[in-house]
């Protein structure tokens, strides 16, 4: 938390102003009971009406002044705390945007979202409290004690007894309550988890009739949460009345011992009344402080989570002096490349060597988990290789700038991602200044025009978040169009044809041919029919190249490929 507060620097002047304003406000609050004591002890006892009215007017002024300060302080502290939230959020988001996939993976999408949204809100809320209470409460308690002592020193021992009692009760409660508070969040997370799982797997759950089982799981988590909440509430049920009791008994004690002092002529009635007010102020401020100390650990959890993100070092960085690639347009070369995902003991790909030139279509085929996606990820430098080199246009991808490298690539990822917004906007994502003509052309090639024109507003049709209102095949075709509109040197289609029917697949490949004639194309596919007319087929098996060549070459030389073909094509097609 303290680390994060460094980001408050632009608000230093504000914070000074807040502290001063609150200082004045506390003083005015503290002054009122003293004035009242005067009003009683001097005004009423002497029956001096003009004095009473004068002091009364003065009290009004003080009260108004204090309120003004408080309002100003609130204004400034709102700006500061919310501004603080803004800064933290901004830092977090730009940090995460700079993450490579590797850093992104180590956190995971869900928690990064929570950290950027919920955790920041949490921090912001606590900073509001800190900004106001952290100043007021201690000031008020200390000032209250001083003023109370000014009224009467010997009554103060009542406070000396009460305050430790108050603190030990709070201490015991916190001791018992804090673990439960922490558990609370865990149980809530658990409930979320159970529900999230049953939402993600809803189709499976329904298909296999596991609804009751899921219900039971949910119920367990739910009951667990309830029991914990009840435990906390039971503790609080003791705490609150006990607090009130202590405050009230303090007043009673003050009345009794104050009466004794008045009887011995050591104290005046107005002083006693003022003293009682100060005592209440002091105890309330202490309670406020305690509340603050309950809130801070909760916010601390959020702060730690935010810091983890902010302090993550970037492992993929641009070199100081990026090399500019030579003339060759779109030559991709792998030289003995091996790569392993962080934490994995087996490499995902091993000793990969090949060279792809413009005008060539390189197909990558292999069983699931064989490393196809991993291989193309390395071209775009989503990860850095462990061994070997990946060259694009003659330059090691680690020696050029990421922006420049990726500007050469049109990427259609295996998991199709569309953003909410118009279809045209989604295609335009590939090339910011694409004209409507270009977009329409890309859609044509991707065989998307037909279904787009059937939609209500055509290219202006709005896509829901994640593209849930489109079919899988429709989404894939938009994803392909997005890559096409970019007119890059290198195309990467990761399993982009998987959801297309045979006819569309063929039509698309035919339309694609002239479009990508001068580019280097990588096409990952599961089906042999999609890859059979490629210039080069790379057969991956368990991260290694099991064979490389054209369809006919591989049929003769590569056992793995033959098996693959045999499992997919009928005998006569084999011929």
């Amino acid at each position: 938390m303290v680390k994060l507060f460094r980001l408050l620097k632009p608000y230093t002047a504000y914070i000074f102003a807040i502290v001063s304003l609150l200082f004045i406000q506390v003083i005015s609050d503290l002054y009122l009971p003293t004035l009242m004591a005067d009003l009683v002890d001097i005004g009423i006892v002497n029956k001096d009406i003009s004095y009473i009215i004068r002091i009364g007017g003065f009290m009004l002024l003080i009260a108004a002044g204090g309120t003004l300060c408080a309002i100003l302080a609130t204004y400034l502290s709102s700006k500061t705390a919310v501004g603080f939230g803004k800064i933290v959020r901004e830092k977090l988001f730009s940090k995460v945007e700079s993450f490579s996939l590797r850093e992104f993976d180590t956190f995971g999408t869900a928690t990064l979202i929570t950290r950027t949204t919920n955790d920041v809100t949490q921090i912001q809320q606590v900073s509001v409290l800190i900004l106001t209470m952290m100043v007021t409460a201690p000031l008020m308690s200390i000032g209250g004690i001083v003023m109370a002592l000014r009224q009467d020193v010997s009554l103060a021992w009542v406070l000396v007894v009460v305050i430790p009692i108050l603190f030990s009760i709070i201490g015991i409660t916190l001791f018992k309550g804090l673990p439960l508070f922490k558990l609370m969040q865990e149980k809530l997370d658990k409930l979320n988890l159970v529900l999230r799982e049953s939402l993600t797997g809803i189709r499976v759950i329904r298909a296999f009739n596991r609804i009751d089982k899921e219900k039971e799981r949910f119920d367990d988590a739910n009951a667990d949460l309830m029991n914990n909440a009840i435990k906390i509430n039971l503790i609080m049920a003791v705490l609150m009345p006990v607090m009130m009791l202590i405050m009230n008994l303090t007043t009673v004690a003050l009345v009794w011992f104050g009466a004794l002092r008045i009887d011995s002529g050591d104290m005046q009635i107005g002083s006693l009344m003022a003293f009682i007010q100060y005592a209440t102020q002091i105890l309330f401020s202490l309670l406020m402080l305690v509340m603050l100390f309950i809130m801070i650990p909760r916010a601390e959890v959020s702060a730690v989570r935010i810091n983890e993100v902010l302090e993550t070092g970037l492992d993929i960085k641009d070199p100081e002096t990026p090399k500019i690639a030579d003339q060759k347009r779109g030559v991709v070369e792998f030289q003995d490349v091996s790569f392993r995902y962080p934490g994995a003991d087996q490499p995902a790909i091993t000793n990969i060597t090949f060279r792809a030139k413009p005008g060539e279509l390189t197909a990558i085929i292999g069983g699931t988990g064989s490393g196809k996606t991993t291989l193309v990820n390395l071209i775009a430098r989503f990860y850095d290789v462990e061994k070997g080199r990946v060259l694009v246009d003659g330059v090691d991808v680690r020696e050029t700038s990421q922006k420049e490298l990726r500007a050469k690539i049109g990427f259609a990822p295996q998991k199709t991602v569309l953003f909410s917004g118009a279809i045209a906007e989604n295609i335009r994502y590939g090339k910011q200044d694409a004209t409507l003509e270009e977009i329409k052309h890309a859609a044509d090639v991707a065989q998307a025009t037909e279904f787009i024109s059937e939609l209500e507003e055509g290219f202006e049709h709005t896509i829901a978040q994640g593209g849930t209102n489109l079919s899988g095949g429709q989404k894939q075709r938009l994803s392909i169009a997005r890559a096409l509109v970019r007119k890059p040197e290198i195309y990467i289609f990761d399993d982009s044809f998987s959801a297309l029917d045979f006819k569309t697949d063929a039509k698309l490949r035919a339309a694609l041919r002239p479009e990508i004639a001068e580019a280097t194309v990588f096409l990952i596919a599961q089906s042999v029919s999609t890859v059979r007319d490629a210039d080069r087929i790379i057969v991956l098996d368990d991260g290694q190249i099991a064979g490389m060549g054209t369809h006919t070459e591989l049929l003769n030389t590569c056992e793995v490929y033959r098996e693959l073909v045999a499992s997919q094509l009928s005998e006569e097609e084999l011929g």
Partner: protein
Amino acid sequence: MSEERSTKKDKGFSGGGPGGGPMGAFGKPVVKAKDFKGTFYRLLNYLKPQRTKFLIVFLFAGLSTIFSILGPKIMGKGITKIGEGFGAKMMAVQMGKPVPSLDFAYIGNIVLILIGLYLISAAFGYVQQYIMAGVAQKTVYKLRKEVDEKLANLPLKFFDSRTHGEILSRVTNDIDNISTTLQQSLTQLITAIVTLIGVIVMMLSISPLLTLIVILTLPLYMIVTISIAKRSQKQFAAQQKSLGELNGHVEEMYAGHKLVKAYGREGESIATFNLINEKLYTAGYKAQFISGIIMPLMRLVSNLGYVIICVVGGVFATRGLIPLEIF
């Protein structure tokens, strides 16, 4: 979309427990107020099985409050007695008579009564909270359970048209809001009503005139509260809307991180984010400010009343009209 999601993130952490403070529920927009009445009755229905417990809670909250109002009244009697004794002493000193002692038998009695009173009040308060702890949580438990069962029967289409986050936040965050409200606001409401009635009765018994003064300041309270509440609702709604927009953007950009990277669009993504973040800031600090000034303003109003009572009471007291206990 942001409309749908706007209810989502205002309660990041609330573990359904205390800590929200009395102001917790104030100023927040009434979430999903479309059919407030219907929702309210439905909620009442959920509470039905625990009717008797609720009645007990009401009863005990009422009793606890009555006792805690009686406290100051009796305390006032004691202070008046001390004041009288004090006055008599001064008088005696002035006239050179032997100084009388305070009436400690009387004061002692009052102190004992007070101690008893406060103990009973605390006990009642405890019983009330003890029961309420279970009632609120069990209601929420049932509510969650039924939502989950309902989800199991909804058509798949429902799930396709919503993000998981949205559904999740319904079941956890939003229901949590209800639990906090149940636990805090309901008891607060009872306490506030009983207190209001009690205090007015009490004041009337002390001095009808001063009561009138206090009651005259009540509309001021109301005006302050209502006008602030109105404004804050607007600002909070604006804040929730920007927050929803921001969450949406974050969710989308993170989910599509690979794509953002592949197409080198980090810059645009950040620019959009900053734009929304700025909007959120503007609405957010205003909302924060408005809800923040409620306390100082309330204190001002009560200070005004306090000063007026001091002055008027003081003037009366010099004429021996009313005892000091009004303070």
